């Protein structure tokens, strides 16, 4: 799913640490979760507000949970508010889903003064699968293969949160792909394009302040 792919791209497969500023990663994951609901036709975006289109619960437990939250909290409708809210624990939520899928393990590490809990690929197979996530995307982009709608949103989120350089790390080889990025995002349906723009805006303001 969208958020799973984004999680694997946004974290180092060897250490499980976030490749971005933690708040940028959180915003990317939150946007991916909202994106899943949009892709399933459950919600839409109009004028910067989330709109519920279909109340039937999605098959995925996490998506169901998020949709329920959106239904329950009626006073908040702004996309930015929801991005900020979901970003606070998106990492844990998506991490848990990846554990259920068997894609990562929950690892507790002792640090100097504290313990650190990370969701990271642990076995060679898991690590292979995790490393494949960005490589698959780069491959699609470089060969100019027609992207699926989900992958186009993923590309948009990768670009909006600042992971483009990680996915397309070889400037010479990936030059073509760089140029095809904007068109991949621009061709998205309005809701999803709005979602990506709101994500980019939120990431920008979070980074400007620089707070953890």
């Amino acid at each position: 799913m969208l958020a799973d792919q984004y999680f694997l791209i946004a974290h180092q497969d060897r250490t499980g640490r976030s490749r971005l500023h933690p708040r940028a990663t959180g915003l990317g994951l939150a946007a991916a979760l909202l994106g899943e609901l949009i892709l399933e036709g459950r919600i839409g975006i109009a004028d910067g507000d989330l709109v519920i289109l279909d109340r039937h619960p999605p098959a995925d437990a996490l998506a169901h949970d998020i949709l329920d939250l959106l239904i329950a909290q009626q006073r908040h409708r702004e996309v930015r508010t929801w991005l900020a809210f979901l970003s606070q624990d998106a990492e844990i939520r998506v991490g848990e889903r990846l554990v259920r899928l068997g894609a990562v393990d929950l690892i507790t590490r002792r640090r100097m003064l504290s313990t650190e809990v990370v969701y990271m690929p642990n076995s060679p197979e898991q690590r292979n699968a995790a490393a494949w996530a960005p490589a698959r995307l780069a491959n699609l982009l470089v060969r100019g293969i027609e992207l699926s709608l989900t992958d186009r949103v993923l590309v948009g989120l990768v670009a909006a949160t600042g992971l483009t350089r990680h996915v397309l790390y070889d400037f010479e080889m990936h030059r073509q792909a760089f140029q095809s990025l904007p068109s991949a995002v621009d061709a998205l349906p309005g809701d999803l394009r709005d979602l990506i723009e709101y994500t980019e805006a939120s990431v920008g303001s979070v980074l400007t302040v620089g707070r953890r």
Partner: protein
Amino acid sequence: MTQKDPFEPDIVARALAKNRLGVPSVVFFGVAGAAPLTVIIGAISATYAIIGSTAVPIAYVAVAAILSLFTVGFVAMSRHIVNSGAFYSYISHGLGRVVGVGAAFVALPAYSVMQIGLYGLFGAAAANILAAFGVITPWWVCAIAAWLIVTVLGLLWVDLSGKVLAVLLVLEISIVLIYDLTMLSHPHGGHITFSSFSPAPLLTPVAGSLLVIAIAGFVGFEATVVLSEEAKDPKRTIARATHWAVIIAAFMCSISAWAMAVTTGPENIAATAGEHQTDLVFFLVGKHLPTPLIDLGYLLFLTSVFAALLAFQAAVARYQFALGREGVLPAGFGRTHPRTGAPLAGSITQSIIAIIALSLYAVSGLDPLVYLFAWMSTIGGLGVLILMWATSAAVIGFFARGRRRENVWRAFIAPFSSFLLLSVVLTATVIGFGELLQVDGSSPFQWLIPVLYCGVALIGFCWAAIMRAGRPEVYAQIGRGTDGRLSLLNDNDFPKPLHADPVGARSFPY
């Protein structure tokens, strides 16, 4: 937009508020930028020495009043533009994008130059302190040491955390109060005089110089609006905190300036200040206080200058980041370090400019306090004054196109009066700028600096015109700061078209 519904727990608002800033943290952020101890020890003594006017205390009071008026409209407008970190985004929203880019081009050198001036103050003060321990170093060694640390911290995007700033600030305020009480309890000739608060000198030509120096002392308080999206209650927290930051800084500066004049006698303050420079306060209280309190004062002075250096480094980097992200500067400025989120290009550029300026001063052997600190902060202060003046015009222009539920005082009266007052101050400053820099009548510095600012603003206007012709889609986004394509909050007075179904309308159809 929120709807009131008392029956359901507001999970979202509660979760968001947990990690957000209250009024005190924002005040600390603003006051640390304004760095009152730096102003008291560095700027006030220099003002007394250079200008020789006894009206310094009333100048700070007057400036605080003007800036409070300015803050009213400024903060009101910040509620309506997303990501309102920098003056130029206000100006492009209020007065148009061409003027906005011009303002950005004025802001970049202004903040940059102010920070470079602070290096001079830090270097001179640190060298003095080391000399007291018997270590004789030139000022530029200390300045470059500070530069190194600031550069590294800037690249790591480490801001002093709220707690460190809070502790330092509380200590600074206490030490200033102790010093002030000491000076006031030992008045010259045995009685306290209030003549320094007489507003009469503000009507004389010297007022322009006094006011611009005082405004330079407040620069940094406006950074509070950067935190508007991090505040617990975006509508109120920032407004209150910004007003508090102005009031605290004004109170500390004017009381201290007054206390200095009381203890030396108003007629002697200029001569004493000229003799002792940045040591003035410590010399005045040194006779009455135990040594540890004096040493603590020196230490806090250094930390305060250092905090201001960091704050300005961040401010410059933030400006360049925002400009790079929206395409006014090359896109490289808009990139951040992936992991830390530090705006690398902006930080590095400022560091490089600073080290070049410091090297030039070190080689030429000019006095760091007069030609680096006093000159640079006055020049930067003029730039920021121009920005504030343009911003208050922008606030009027912005609200003239719709009041957006702000009352008449916030939308029109306060911005208009602050615009008038700032116009007066700006005119007086530009006319008397040569005297401010202490140059004689034939020197090109009499007129050069304001002309240079006009020049960079013109370059900005031209650049905006070029962008409008060549890259109209980028031009259309100017003034939206780091926000990219989305800018104005949808908060006009018209009701929104009805959606299919607002999120959370609580009626399950199944």
